[in-house]
């Protein structure tokens, strides 16, 4: 059970504010790791750094042993770090199938890239169809992304994140806005993904989900890791309880 993604001493500052403070983190293949913490704890910033959208100010990120710190977004994706967004960022005027097909990007050389860009149509279509079947959207392949109901949007984003050479799939609040039935569906899907092999890394506020399916939980507050371990361990950890309830206690006179 080696770590696919190793983070050491990750730091991000915005002006005078330290958003992420010396974070160490490991995400292992075939496991579901969750990142939790109160609002503003720096979770999305961590995601942004790991997916190449934001440059870390300090620290190292290693993917399967290779140093990918500060790599651009598209390079991270091709190396295998794929993510979804808090508010789904789909390609609204493309079909469901096209949305997934675009995400199939694995070429490493310019020559390979050029050939793929022009001629890999059929191959990509088949792969995309397979992924859609896996998330249960095969019957909607020809519809525009903009016509999907909300619950399906997340599934489409998930299919997109699985495309290509996904080694680490990062999901930003994957069950936000879903009803309990949809949440159960998604949890089963996440477990199915875990069986396929990639490492899953979640930001989530829904505690039932976090405690039910996570293998490991990391807790962030004010940009710092305050606890880490199995769900059971974290649930009763004093620092975690303090972080989530501390504000309310201060309010009472």
């Amino acid at each position: 059970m080696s770590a696919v993604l190793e983070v050491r001493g990750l730091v991000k500052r915005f002006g005078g504010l330290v958003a992420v403070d010396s974070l160490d983190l490991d995400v292992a293949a075939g496991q579901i790791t969750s990142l939790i913490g109160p609002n503003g704890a720096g979770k999305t910033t961590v995601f942004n750094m790991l997916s190449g959208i934001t440059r870390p100010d300090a620290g190292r990120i290693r993917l399967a042993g290779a140093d990918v710190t500060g790599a651009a977004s598209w390079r991270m994706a091709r190396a295998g770090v794929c993510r979804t967004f808090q508010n789904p960022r789909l390609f609204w005027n493309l079909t469901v199938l096209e949305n997934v097909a675009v995400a199939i990007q694995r070429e490493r050389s310019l020559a390979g890239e050029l050939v793929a860009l022009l001629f890999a149509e059929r191959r990509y279509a088949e792969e995309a169809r397979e992924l859609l079947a896996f998330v249960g959207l095969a019957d909607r392949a020809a519809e525009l992304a903009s016509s999907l109901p909300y619950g399906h949007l997340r599934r489409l984003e998930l299919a997109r994140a699985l495309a290509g050479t996904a080694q680490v799939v990062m999901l930003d609040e994957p069950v936000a806005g879903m009803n309990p039935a949809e949440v159960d569906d998604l949890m089963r899907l996440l477990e199915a993904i875990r069986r396929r092999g990639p490492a899953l890394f979640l930001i989530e506020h829904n505690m039932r989900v976090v405690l039910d399916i996570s293998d490991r939980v990391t807790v962030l507050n004010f940009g710092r890791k305050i606890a880490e371990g199995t769900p059971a361990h974290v649930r009763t950890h004093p620092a975690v309880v303090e972080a989530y309830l501390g504000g309310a206690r201060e309010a009472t006179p």
Partner: protein
Amino acid sequence: MLAQVALNGVIVGSIYALVALGFVVVYRSVAMFNFAQTEYYTLGGMLFATLLVVGGVPFLVALVLTVAVGVAVGVLCERLAFRRLLLAQAQPVNLIIASIALAIVLRSIILLAWGPDARRVPSLGDDPIRLAELLITPQQAFIVAATVLAVAAVALFLHRTRLGLALRATASNRMVAGLMGVPLTSVLALSFGLSAGLGALGGILVAPILLAQFSMGQAILVKAFAAAILGGLASIPGVIVGGLVVGLAENVAGAYLSSAYKDVVAFAVLLLVLAARPAGILGGRVDDKV
């Protein structure tokens, strides 16, 4: 001689700064570029020419009247062409196309109304006065003075009045204007009207020197834009600097290279500035909300 060329550059640069300020006012309030901005400049020049020459209207009256008409046309354009799109938060592409279309419409109306010929406009005086080693005509002095006054007035308005604050705040948050008690539609009308007025003033000032013609706006579009973004779009001093740089570069190049390629210099300045800017201004920022 270089100093004289530089002076000419400063004078023409003032005009660019004035028109560019119009770009910036609209940009600061609604985050869009109005490609029709320089057509108000043309309108100003043509109308001023007509009032002075055909109407025999006194200079200052003609100036005020023309600026007023410019403002009115600006407000009308906002109402007809942009309001619908702005209120609906239309895609930037659509706003761009709308303003290009508006520019075409305005230009062709001007062409239909005034014909293709250039018009001479009497100036405030073409006999150069000697200032140290340099020669400056009364008209040129007027241009500089009027520009300074206009820019100062706009700066005061934007930074010292409530309306001005509402104008500046609206770009980042549409709600703010309403919260301040100023309806959004008023802010829109105001910013487009103000920028049109500035454009028209530019046309009025330059007409006696460069002749008034239906194509004059198109000719300075790229230059005024270059001045605006050179100055950084954020500050009024920046706009002035931008205008002066473009005017100077153009005149210096025109004096030492062929004058036919003078325009190319302004275009090249624009392209260089654009090439040097990292990732544009609006998009590609790292703190884009994800």
